[in-house]
């Protein structure tokens, strides 16, 4: 693990960052958001509310049209400083021609890590997502849920400080999604990660996050910032607990009022 530049600074600090695409669409109105280390932050909102744009700004995949983003207390716009990010896309986005272990090894290969040295990291990542037995398979030979796990293994293989996930389980059935949600929480706890998770599922947000940033559409903006630090384990019993249901209600109201406000503008 590399040393963060400043241990007190938040993982990501977004100051007035906004995004207007070349077509003139305002994808994201100015956003101020500081995400602390170790937080599990969910960006929740309907389609077209700029969730993915905000995530991609944090990933450095999209440049802001204005405002600044600071990572790990570094200079604005500098993603360096030893910060490692893992990104999980909406679809597994695996290389179809490479076996599962070669897909997981990709970030190490691109960073020039020698094969022998990276082997343990690849094995660990695969074991953590339960794919150790499937290392020599091709992506096509796996189910959708297993492909997603391979994608997560790839994102964590180089021991990232932050995991960015863009509706990773949206295409999966409810049962697989719940299982992967639980596995993700275990991973988050085990690795001390900072997670930014995009979803449009209220229950998924309430189950996973320590904090939920509710977003509204046209233009994309932050409408509410809900703290959801609760004690106790997040297991199946948690899904029926009052804390969980309260949170769902609150999120649902926030999204509803944002939608109504947009209609009246």
């Amino acid at each position, binding site marked *: 693990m590399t040393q963060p530049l400043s241990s007190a600074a938040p993982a990501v600090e977004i100051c007035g960052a906004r995004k207007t695409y070349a077509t003139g669409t305002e994808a994201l109105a100015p956003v101020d958001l500081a995400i602390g280390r170790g937080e599990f932050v969910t960006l929740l909102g309907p389609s077209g509310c700029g969730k993915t744009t905000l995530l991609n700004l944090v*990933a*450095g*995949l999209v440049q802001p049209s204005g405002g600044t983003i600071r990572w790990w207390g570094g200079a604005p716009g500098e993603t360096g400083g030893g910060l490692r*990010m893992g*990104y999980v*896309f909406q*679809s597994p*986005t695996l*290389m*179809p*021609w*490479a076996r599962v272990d070669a897909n997981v090894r*990709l*970030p190490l*290969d*691109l*960073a020039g890590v020698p094969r022998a040295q990276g082997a343990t990291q690849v094995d660990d990542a695969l074991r953590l997502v339960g794919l150790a037995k499937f290392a020599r398979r*091709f*992506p*096509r*030979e796996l189910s959708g849920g297993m492909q997603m796990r391979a994608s997560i293994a790839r994102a964590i293989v180089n021991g990232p400080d932050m995991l960015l996930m863009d509706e990773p389980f949206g295409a999966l059935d409810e049962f697989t999604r719940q299982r992967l949600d639980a596995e993700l929480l275990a991973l988050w706890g085990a690795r001390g990660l900072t997670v930014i998770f995009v979803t449009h599922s209220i229950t998924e947000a309430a189950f996973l996050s320590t904090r939920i940033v509710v977003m509204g559409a046209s233009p994309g903006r932050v409408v509410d910032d809900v703290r959801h630090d609760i004690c106790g384990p997040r297991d199946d019993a948690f899904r029926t607990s009052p804390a969980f249901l309260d949170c769902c209600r609150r999120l649902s109201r926030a999204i509803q009022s944002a939608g109504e406000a947009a209609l009246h503008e």
Partner: protein
Amino acid sequence: MNDAEPPDGIARGFRVAAPALVGVIAVGLWQWLVVANDVPVWLVPSPAVVLRTLVDERALLLDSLGVTLGIALTALALAVVVGVAIALVFVQSRVIEMSLFPYAVLLQVTPLVAIAPLVIIWVGDTRVALVLCAAVVALFPIVSNTTLGLRSVDPGLLDLFRMSRASRWQVLWRLRLPSALPYFLGGLRIASGLALIGAVVAEFVAGTGGAGAGLAYQILLAGIQLNMPRLFASLVLIALAGIALFAATVALSRAALRRWHESETSDAVR
């Protein structure tokens, strides 16, 4: 239900048996028509005569087949090397592609018979000239398919490579080339047939004789001499060579893509 699909084993056997049966019937009909109507051999030889010619003149015919196949395969190899190189240049920038692609099209639409005489005059060595002509014909599908393939990269994977600060070389070697492989192999399948056609047509134009004579020259000469059995035998060999080339490229695609690409995995993996 008479329309029901037959079981798998029968379906597979049928796939081989049905075209074979059509072939046997056609050849049998041809043999019968020639014999029954007493057609002279200098007009249409019977299949039996063609077969006998293939056996009797095998030394001469196989030599010629070797020459033609040699030209076609050398041209194909040249087209692959040059075509992939051009495609790699094209994907470096849209400006380069836009400036040069019309000329690739121009090369493609100009009939070979129109340029072959020029090439044969300009290039002293006839064999080299024939290879060049055939390569020009085979080039286009390689260039256009490979260019398309090099551009058909999963945008998510490209983002991932960018986020990992991959070098241009890493993107090319680890992402673009593997993505392009199925497209390239599709182009190769078309180009292999074109290379053979190019080799035959160019030789027709050149009319090379002597020791290095290919199948086209045998056809040309046999036509003048009204040696129909040899003409037909040469035609049969060209057809067989074309089928063999096609089958080889199909086998190559299958071997390369069997485990991961949709075009080959449909009945193999699941």
